């Protein structure tokens, strides 16, 4: 141990020097804009902090690595969980989600946050069809989410259609957009496809922002109709000819009823997405997705038409995003292009990738981690995206194939090998 300590210190010192250099212009100096132009103010203490932090971090990492090597410690590799635990965990989570609003500690705030997390879980499950199963990297998924949200908002504002009529329509519109976009671009290779979908997402946002007559431009659309339960309204004073939910069941009116109703609505939608994915993976088209992800050339030589198969994945993923979008619109009652930026796409993609591209439970965990956790740390809002970017890099470095990766095909020949 003794002989090798100088390089240890040296590498840490080098890393610290590098960090200090990198931090010097951007952290060490701050641009201050005042009435008479820009001026500078120095913050040398931040550079020192950065260098010190990197020094300690590097030292700890190196020591940890050395410790593992010297004592030949094997980090325990957990045995693969038996088949039933996966199902068990899934059922347990679903059950927990079902009773959550009635638990004693669940207040309105918590149910609201859980609803937010569920929207992302649903979006993650939708994108999982595209990215996880079919292996197509889509950086513009938020476009379909936006199409769904705006379809519902516009249909309901212009024609006065109810949420339940608009929901399938919004899904259809989003799927149609998916088809229209997918048809020309799906021939492209993976990373080109990523950039084109990114461009498409931006185009949709720019159009929403500038087509003022239709979308209201940057101001957005407000006063979107809330959903009802089989004609039972959740308003304090139900509109003419309708019965209120509370009145019908003989309860006292409470605004919480709607929050809980919305929670169950998104839970049902998300579970439907999940069930759909689990089922379709066993159908020929689902198997073709996974086969295509693994080896496109082999698939082509076996007579699978890659374009149709990819297109189906693209359209189905878009459809679920459309459903989620119309739910988002009805929950918020207000939408604007601000809600559909690239960061949202990156967030949904990060959830899928973090979850292990293809693992349904992994996506739930990742959504809890990425959406649920930051909701509790609202005070650290500023640092939230910073940590988010760092987490994306670190998780890729640590596990390039995701937290719970399930690359293994859903179906095998002749039982499990």
């Amino acid at each position: 141990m003794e002989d090798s300590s100088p390089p240890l210190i040296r590498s840490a010192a080098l890393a610290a020097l590098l960090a200090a250099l990198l931090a010097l212009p951007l952290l060490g100096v701050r641009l201050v804009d005042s009435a008479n132009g820009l001026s500078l103010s120095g913050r040398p203490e931040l550079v020192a902090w950065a260098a010190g932090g990197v020094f300690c971090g590097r030292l700890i990492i190196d020591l940890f690595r050395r410790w593992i090597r010297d004592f030949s410690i094997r980090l325990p590799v957990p045995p693969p969980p038996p088949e039933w635990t996966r199902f068990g965990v899934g059922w347990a989570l679903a059950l927990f989600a079902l009773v959550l609003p009635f638990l004693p500690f669940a207040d309105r705030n918590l149910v609201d946050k859980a609803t937010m997390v569920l929207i992302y879980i649903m979006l993650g499950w939708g994108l999982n069809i595209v990215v996880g199963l079919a292996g197509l990297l889509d950086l513009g998924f938020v476009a379909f989410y936006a199409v769904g949200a705006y379809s519902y908002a516009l249909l309901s504002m212009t024609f006065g259609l109810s949420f339940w009529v608009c929901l399938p329509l919004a899904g259809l519109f989003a799927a149609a957009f998916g088809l229209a976009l997918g048809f020309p671009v799906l021939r492209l290779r993976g990373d080109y496809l990523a950039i084109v979908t990114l461009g498409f997402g931006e185009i949709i946002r720019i159009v929403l922002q500038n087509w003022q007559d239709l979308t209201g431009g940057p101001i957005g659309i407000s006063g979107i109709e809330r959903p009802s339960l089989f004609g039972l309204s959740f308003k304090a004073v139900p509109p003419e000819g309708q019965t209120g939910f509370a009145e019908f069941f003989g309860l006292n009116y409470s605004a919480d009823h709607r929050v809980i109703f919305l929670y169950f609505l998104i839970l049902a939608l998300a579970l439907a997405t999940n069930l759909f994915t689990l089922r379709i993976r066993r159908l020929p088209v689902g198997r073709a997705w996974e086969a295509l992800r693994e080896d496109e050339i082999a698939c082509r030589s076996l007579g699978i038409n890659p374009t149709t198969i990819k297109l189906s994945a693209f359209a189905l993923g878009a459809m679920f995003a459309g459903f989620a979008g119309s739910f988002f619109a009805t929950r918020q009652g207000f939408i604007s292009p601000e809600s559909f930026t690239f960061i949202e796409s990156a967030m949904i993609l990060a959830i899928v990738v973090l979850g292990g591209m293809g693992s349904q439970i992994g996506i739930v965990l990742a959504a809890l981690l990425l959406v649920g956790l930051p909701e509790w740390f609202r005070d650290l809002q500023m640092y939230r995206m910073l940590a988010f970017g760092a987490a994306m890099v670190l998780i890729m470095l640590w596990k390039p194939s995701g937290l719970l990766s399930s690359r293994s095909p859903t179906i095998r020949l002749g039982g499990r090998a």
Partner: protein
Amino acid sequence: MEYFFQQVINGLTLGAIYGLIALGYTMVYGIIGMINFAHGEIYMLGAFISLIAYLVFSSIGGGSVALALLAALLVTMVFTALWGWVVERMAYRPLRGAPRLAPLISAIGVSILLQNFVQIAQGARVKPLPPVIQGGITLDLGAEIALSISWLQIVIFLLTLTLMVGFTWIIARTSLGRAQRATEQDMKMAALLGVNVDRVVSTTFVIGAALAGVAGMMVTLYYGVIDFYIGFIAGIKAFTAAVLGGIGSLPGAMLGGLLIGLTESLWSAYFSIQYKDVATFAILVGVLLFRPSGLFGRPDVEKV
């Protein structure tokens, strides 16, 4: 007519800036086949560093604007090169050989990280810089057409031209360039023949980042306002330029940049300024659909 030529000049200036960023994309793609999504952020860092460096030098350097600008340019190149090197080393190198999407996702992470780092460190408001280089010349082309070209535009053209020539010389004549071309053709074989592949890749990132830094400084001087978000759109446009020129081809990247700059400026002048980004994206989609190998690229054959 005068308006048209004026827009062409403005478009070419913009295009020179895009071209410099596009070089970084095209080199990295050529050598390791990866879209360096964070490249636009390096350009944004360059804009900020150059602004800070210029303010520092002009306050200590006394009167000479030219000297302060030159010093700021060098400092910007050094620091962006350093950032490029560190990003490659930490976020991309460990992922060489990982599944194809892993480096791309890591690059998106780096991009978000850098954007928010600058937002926190320097504030979210736009940073204005009053014009540093003023004045220009007027070209009288006869037929009552008089074009005005600012000194700044001339500086941008000359600097871009110098960098391009120097850069082409490096690739074509030096041993570094030879190693780079070898690595581009066949990384494994180059490694077997004694090329230090890691170092070549590092150098590629360093050069690309330094060029993006120069582009960042140009944009700071040209537009006079920067914020932490400029890297995203500029990055996509430069990527479009690289694809348009044929990804992997250096003259292609420069030509693509000029074409994108021209399109953008003419589109804003004659159609609508709100939809200028849409025009670029439409070009990107169109090129990828009808001529994926770009203007100068080699068509790539997928082998088993």
